[in-house]
């Protein structure tokens, strides 16, 4: 049988690792796929290329796929999220000026950092994020919008390509950023910023990137869909096996897909980030999850949370839920030993600790998935 050729788009970030490992360690080839990974210059370009059929699949910001399905902003198309590629993994950092004004605040404390940041802000906070429809923006706003409004501080979202985030901080174009690795660690290494809060401190289990395909393509190519999902699932499982991590860093730095040195790849992969120049790495529990705790399962309640944060009405929320294809996930991944949760929606934010739940094989541990404010999001069904 000849290999099926598949063109997959990605933006060079550490969390594109599952795609790179699927290709480089031949998980894709073993599934009969000849995977071509095509780096994209921007999220808009990635979206257009996917929607217009130049890419069969893409690593996409979870809110971008939801926004496209709901017809928000730019090009809309019916996009399905086949699986979650990574959970968490973004980081909030501040400029040196802001860092001085904030004073000494413990890294990763959501309450103290919010207070200090708002106290240090002068009327307005300019926040760099990679794209308007991103978890970066949604989580930042979830964390700070209400408190900022109370304090009379305006939040201005400034879309900035991640590789330029450190420059934007240095040149005073933004006061604070939320960005995916390696760009937080790069800002620290360049001495232009200090990291204050990993996004996992805002929501402990946030879907960050998804594997996105056109809805019609998924319908017309069920075999290829399944093969791709299995290959990436195996790559994600490999990545989340502790003993593989040094090798993962090595492969990612050697492959041409990222074009980054191992020193900036290591922090995210080893979940240990140095918050400021010269400081040792601090362990961040669950900073970036590829596979553990059913990370790849596309929970419909996650899509609903995103849609709700994008001010969707009931109909929009339903559309968003349907675009997270937990049905296909069950269909294609049960055969390779992925443990399946009993339901496809959960009460988001209800697990303060890792929790054993009912599942097909009986080994599934979920969470923690708590929000920093202790709130629980009920997507309304099947819980």
């Amino acid at each position: 049988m000849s290999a099926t050729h598949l063109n997959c788009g990605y933006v060079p970030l550490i969390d594109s690792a599952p795609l790179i490992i699927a290709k480089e360690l031949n998980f894709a080839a073993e599934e009969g796929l000849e995977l071509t990974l095509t780096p994209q210059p921007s999220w808009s370009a990635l979206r257009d290329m996917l929607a217009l059929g130049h890419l069969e699949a893409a690593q996409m910001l979870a809110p971008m796929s939801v926004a496209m399905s709901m017809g928000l902003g730019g090009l809309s198309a019916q996009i399905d999220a086949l699986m979650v590629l990574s959970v968490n993994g973004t980081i909030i950092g501040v400029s040196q000026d802001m860092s001085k004004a904030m004073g000494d605040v413990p890294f990763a404390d959501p309450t103290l950092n919010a207070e200090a940041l708002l106290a240090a802000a002068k009327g307005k906070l300019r926040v760099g994020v990679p794209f308007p429809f991103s978890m970066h923006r949604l989580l930042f706003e979830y964390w700070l919008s209400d408190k900022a409004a109370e304090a009379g501080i305006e939040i201005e979202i400034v879309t900035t390509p991640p590789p330029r985030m450190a420059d934007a901080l240095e040149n005073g174009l933004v006061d604070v950023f939320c960005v995916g690795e390696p760009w937080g660690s790069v800002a620290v290494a360049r001495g232009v910023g200090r990291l204050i809060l990993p996004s996992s401190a805002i929501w402990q289990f946030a879907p960050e990137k998804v594997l996105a395909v056109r809805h019609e393509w998924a319908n017309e190519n069920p075999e290829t869909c399944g093969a791709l999902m299995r290959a990436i699932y195996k790559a994600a499982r490999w990545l989340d096996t502790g003993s593989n991590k040094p090798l993962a860093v090595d492969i990612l730095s050697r492959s041409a897909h990222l074009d980054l040195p191992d020193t900036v790849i290591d922090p995210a992969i080893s979940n240990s980030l140095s918050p400021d120049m010269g400081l040792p790495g601090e362990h961040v529990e669950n900073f970036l999850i590829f596979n553990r705790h059913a990370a790849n399962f596309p929970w419909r309640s996650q899509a609903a949370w995103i849609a709700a944060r994008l001010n969707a009405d009931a109909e929009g929320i339903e559309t968003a839920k349907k675009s997270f294809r937990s049905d296909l996930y069950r269909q294609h991944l049960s055969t390779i030993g992925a443990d399946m949760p009993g339901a496809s929606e959960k009460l988001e934010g209800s697990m303060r600790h890792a929790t054993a739940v009912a599942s097909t094989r009986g080994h599934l541990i979920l969470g923690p998935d708590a929000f920093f404010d202790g709130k629980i999001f009920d997507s309304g069904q099947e819980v």
Partner: protein
Amino acid sequence: MDQDLRILVVEPDPERAHSIIDALTADGWTNLHVVGDVTALDRKMKTLSPDIVLIDLANPDRDTLEHISMVSDAKSRPVAMFVDKTDDTMTQAAIQAGLSAYVVDGLHMNRIKPVIETAIARFQVMRKMQTELDAAKRALADRKTIDRAKGLIMKARGIGEDEAYALLRKSAMDQGKKVIDVAQALVTASDLLS
């Protein structure tokens, strides 16, 4: 020509920006504007409210432009041209040429099309020139490497230039490789050993 159309070109490279403006000017448009520095983009979009924005598909600032368009006034909001899939041939041609365009909602296709066609043609020329330039640079770099490899062989074996090249070529043929690859391997090995 449709001189009232306000056209904004987002391009940080002055030479490329000139080239695009020249092409549009030559075809009769006069209301043309360029922004190179993305930090000025927000202000430019507000003061100018362009009808059409042209930007390289490979420009990472597209996401910034996209965001600014999204939050701008609804009545003059430019949207990505690809939204309009009515003219698939033109969309595909734009992508091939590496052009993306944002067009104010409601602007008639007859007014947009000539602008896009001119831009596509110019982007194609620029892309071709870039490809040729890259090829020329690569050829020059290859030549230097091969010359160094020849020099190494001449010195080590005490033979002439032609003989050294013949040896390189034979070695490449025997291994089923390109001459440049064998030359590169030799140069790398020599650098490591010296």
